[in-house]
């Protein structure tokens, strides 16, 4: 059972009554701080306990790749290794072993597991706009090097590549023309 009480953010007292699911502010019973607490059924949901994995009782039974003494429950959906209940990581309907889960997160293969993304396109676009000559070359390099890298999960921008190339090319051509003209005169 979930035993953690909701605490007042100011005085840290566990809240029992008077402030829950009202559509207005109500004072904390202890410190009178105006609070509004919205609770959902998950608050009362018991916390599940993970399976431990059954021990192998008879010889010849399939065993877990990571725990040879434990009975295999499912194969990993990514690498096919047999897994016991302890090693079976369920994620969005997939049964994965811890290694595949970690690799998937690192290599961004599993959708919905990414914790961070570098926005190369934004960096390239910024460099294309900043007029320092060298930044034009850097922007072209970055745009070509990272053109297949995924952008932001929430705000994917499709037009960044042509825009970066146009700005960066203009910058490089403009500066080159200026230098050539200065050299000739």
């Amino acid at each position, binding site marked *: *059972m*979930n*035993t*953690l*009480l*909701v*605490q*007042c*953010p*100011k005085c*840290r*007292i*566990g*809240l*029992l*009554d*008077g402030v*829950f*699911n*009202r*559509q207005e*502010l109500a004072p*904390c*019973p*202890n410190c009178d*701080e*105006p*609070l*509004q*607490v*919205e*609770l*959902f*059924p*998950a*608050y*009362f*949901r018991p*916390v599940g306990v993970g399976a431990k994995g059954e021990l192998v009782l008879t010889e010849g039974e399939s065993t877990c790749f990571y725990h040879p003494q434990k009975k295999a429950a499912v194969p990993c959906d990514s690498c096919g290794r047999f897994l016991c209940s302890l090693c079976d990581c369920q994620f969005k309907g997939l049964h994965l072993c811890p290694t595949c889960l970690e690799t998937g997160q690192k290599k961004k293969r599993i959708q*919905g597991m*990414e*914790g*961070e*993304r*570098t*926005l190369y396109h*934004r*960096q390239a676009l*910024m460099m294309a706009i900043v007029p320092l000559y060298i930044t034009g070359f850097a922007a072209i390099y970055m745009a070509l090097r990272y053109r297949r890298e995924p952008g*932001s*999960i*929430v705000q*994917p921008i499709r037009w960044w590549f042509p825009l970066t190339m146009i700005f960066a090319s203009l910058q490089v051509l403009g500066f080159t023309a200026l230098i050539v003209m200065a050299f000739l005169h």
Partner: protein
Amino acid sequence: MATKRPYKRLPGTGYRRTVPTWLIFLAFFGIGIFALLLRGRRVQLWEGEEELMLVESNGYVESYKRFNYSNIQGFIIRKTNGAKIATYILIAFVVCFAALAIAVSDVGGRIALIVIASVFFLLALVNGLLGQSCETFVRTAVQTDDLPSLDRLPRARKVINRLRPRIAAAQGQLAAEEIPARIRDLLPKAAPPVMNVPAGQIQPATEPVVAAGQPAPQPEPAPAPPVI
């Protein structure tokens, strides 16, 4: 053909501050617009089909934190006085510059001071129109995380109202009347969090919780030393 975006942006943009706001305000007089570089990482909330996503960005790297609708236990809003204090300060500036404008005899100087006073007045007006300030936290079974983008009461309520149907679809409904009784059911079994732990951190279950209206639990007396 345009692809459907999986996330919709929720109102509000906040900043995970590394420097106090008042210091940024003071820095503005020293380094001008560059003071905005001290704001910290930008935080926005995005509404997905299955999850609420908190996106933190420094402009070139985005980090994501997902709160599945079925795992959200609640939202906690605490009203703060930040907006009120900011309004008072801005009004004080307006009064100062207006008084100076009246005192100055030079027409050019008077116009300049009136313009400055108007800018502060506009800022105070916008600040007032945004509503009361607040802190908002989202609670799951393993953490209580703050949501800096929901720093105004009307906005926080708007976002929660928008998320409520999705959470209800994932978890079902909870009647307000049954909450106190169900919480009291939890209480005798409670052996949980610690006081004085900043929000946003996982709290180890080392000390019993102190509930409002309940006497604080007394520590058990230490056993008497053995007599030799």
